[in-house]
Structure formats: structure tokens, C-alpha cells
């Protein structure tokens, strides 16, 4: 190897290493300062979505957290809360679901009533390339005037211009609905 070539290779390698190192440092530093605010924002978004779903509920007691223990073996459901009011009247269960596909990811909050019907679906985060189409689909299909029962979810039409996103939403709701049945019928509630 010629000495000149070696010099060029070393210079190129060093430049790339320094560039990558400085960039990583800057990104890491900004992340260090913004991560707590982002986490607070996420919690606030969750709380607001829960309140929008069950506006009469005064408290949302934690029922399930996949980070602590995933005894139900959920794939999409990450958290769940019981929607209650002051006199401990139970309105339903609220689930936070997060899923990904080739087009991005969706995080949503869904409320299931005591009769296993869908109360409302609120999108917390949508990074799908067809995000607007998926949001419109959720609005018209799940938040419309028609009441949707848990058993009907798997038969819902997903053709909307963002079929894969709509399928992901449907899968998340099927899992959350199944979870609601288990939690309400199982040991947690009937006792």
C-alpha cells in the first residue's frame, strides 16, 4: 500500500469517525434534556385520551402494565385502566395498545364498556405514512353512531385506502377486547 493512499484512508476514516461521534454526542445530549418532557407529554396525552373516552369517570385505576408483568401474553396491549367515578361505579376498561407495521406505528387508547362494546378509540400517536387515512377510518368506523360489539370487530371492513393500518388497528382492538373479556369475567372483576 502506498504511503499517500494510507494517509487518505486514515484521513477519511478519522473524518467519518469524528463526524459520527460528534453527531451522536449532540443527539444524545439533546435526548438527555428532552426525554423527561417527552415522557410527561406522553402521560398527559394518555390521561386526556382516557378522559375523552369516559368523560364521567373521575379516576382511572391501573389494571395492567405490560412493563411490570405480561401475564395475559399481550402483543399490542401495553397498559390498561379501570374507569371509575367517585362512588366506585365501574364504566369500563381502557386499554393502551401499540403496534407497528411496514408503514409505521400506531398507539391508541380504546375503551370497552361492561357489555364489551367499544366506547371510543383515541389515537395517541400515529407515524404511519397514511396516518390521516387511518385516523379518518378510526373516526368513521369506531367513533361513529353505530355501537360496535367486541364480536363484530374481527368482521369489520378494513378497505379504506390504508388497509394495512386499518388491519393493525383491528388486530389491536381484537386483542384489547379479548383482554377486557378476560379481565371483566376473570378473577379481576367478578370477585
Amino acid at each position: 500500500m502506498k504511503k499517500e493512499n494510507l494517509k487518505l484512508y486514515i484521513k477519511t476514516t478519522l473524518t467519518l469517525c469524528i463526524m459520527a461521534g460528534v453527531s451522536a454526542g449532540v443527539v444524545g445530549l439533546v435526548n438527555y434534556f428532552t426525554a423527561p418532557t417527552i415522557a410527561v407529554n406522553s402521560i398527559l396525552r394518555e390521561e386526556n385520551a382516557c378522559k375523552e373516552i369516559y368523560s364521567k369517570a373521575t379516576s382511572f385505576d391501573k389494571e395492567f402494565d405490560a412493563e411490570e408483568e405480561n401475564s395475559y401474553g399481550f402483543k399490542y396491549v401495553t397498559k390498561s385502566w379501570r374507569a371509575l367515578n367517585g362512588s366506585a361505579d365501574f364504566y369500563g376498561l381502557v386499554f393502551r395498545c401499540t403496534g407497528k407495521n411496514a408503514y409505521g406505528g400506531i398507539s391508541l387508547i380504546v375503551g370497552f364498556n361492561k357489555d364489551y362494546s367499544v366506547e371510543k378509540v383515541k389515537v395517541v400517536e400515529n407515524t404511519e405514512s397514511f396516518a390521516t387515512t387511518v385516523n379518518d377510518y378510526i373516526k368513521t368506523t369506531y367513533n361513529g353512531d353505530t355501537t360496535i360489539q367486541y364480536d363484530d370487530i374481527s368482521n369489520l371492513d378494513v378497505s379504506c385506502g390504508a388497509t394495512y393500518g386499518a388491519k393493525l388497528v383491528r388486530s389491536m382492538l381484537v386483542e384489547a377486547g379479548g383482554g377486557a373479556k378476560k379481565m371483566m369475567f376473570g378473577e379481576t372483576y367478578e370477585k
Partner: protein
Amino acid sequence: MKNNNHEHLKNLTRGIFVENPLFVMILGTCPALAVTKSLEAALGMSILFMITLIGSNVVISLLKKLIPEAIKIPCYIVIIASFVTVIKMLCEAFLPELYSTLGVFISLIVVNCIVLGRAEAFANKNTVFDSFLDAIGMSLGYGLALIIMALIREIFGTGGITMGNILTFIPYFSFVPLATYKLQFFQMPAGAFLVLGLILAVIAFYQNRKHEHQLVKERLIKQEQALLAAQNKAPNVEVK
């Protein structure tokens, strides 16, 4: 000195009108079609785009002599991507509504042709100050184009203007007098294509007209010159 000032001014204004990235060079059309549903989203995108372009242009211009020719494009991409990531995190933390509205299009600024194009075509060859002015001009031009498109789409699509929902530092304001006559089509992707197409057609019409006027003017000057030349050549004949 005067010439220098003229050059600086030219660098600043070039991107706004003569070389407008969207309406003249037809660059960055993907986000332009996607984020111009509302004036606020367009304004937010313009601000984020401006910060990215100014930052990357200045840094690239500063490091132009240190970056080896063979790896300049990967280096530019790293610099631009770092700026976009930082801006994305700051936006997610302090402007969450804007972050959720623009979504994937914030990350896509990395691959926006305008940013990489200006780095390669301008910042790479010019001084830091000139690159800074170029970035301001180009981002103002792009922002202006986005705002024009968003204004048309929002007014026709919703029947008015609403502010303060996405950019929360702006006081809430809603003026929707034509809500009953709104045309939902303008809020859809096809509406975006139509608006962009119509604006480009209007620009092309004026440019063509200007070009035709120029041609006519040149032809008239030529005819006049030919007539003068013919008069000068013609022998003086006295009529008795």
C-alpha cells in the same frame, strides 16, 4: 463594497423569487403536498425547515475544507440528519401538537432535495455568511410557497382560517365564514396536486408572457436597427 452588498442581497433574494425551490425548481414537492392542509402546519414545517437548512448550510460551509471530497455526501447526510433528529426531539418535547400533525414529514426533511442540494451546490463552495444568507433566502422561498398553497387549500377546504390548534404559542383564532360552502376536495391529496398544478400554470403563464414580450421587444429593436441601417445605406436622392 457596494458590489459585495449587491452579491449578498442577490444570495438572499434568489431563493425567494427567481429560484424558488418549490415553484421554480419543483423541489421538495412531497412534504409540500402533505403538510399544506392547514396554514398552521405549513407555517410549522417552514420554521423547522428553515432551522435545518440554516444549521446544515452553516456547518457544511464551516467544514468544507476539512471534509475529503470522496466522502462529502455521507458527511453532509450525517450533518443534516443530526440537525433533523435534534429538531424532531425538541419539537416532540415542546411542540407536541405540531409533532403529531407533521408526523413522518419531520424526519423526511433529511432526504429533502433542497437541503442536500444547497449543501452540495452552494454551502460547499461559498463563505459561511453567504451560505447563511442563501439558507435564509431558500427557506423563506420554500416557506412562502407552502403558505400560499396552505392558504388556498384551507380557505377552500374548510371555508376559512383557524390558528392556535397546532402552533400552541399562537393565540387561538378561528374565522370560518364560508364553512357551508367548503369544498372537502381541497383538503385531500388530489386537491393538493390541483392547487400546486394551478399555481405552476399561473407562474408559467406569466413567465411565458414575459418571455414573449421580451422576444417582441428584441424583434422591434432589430427591425428598428435594420431600418436605420437601410436608411443610412440608401443614396440620397433629391426629388426635384
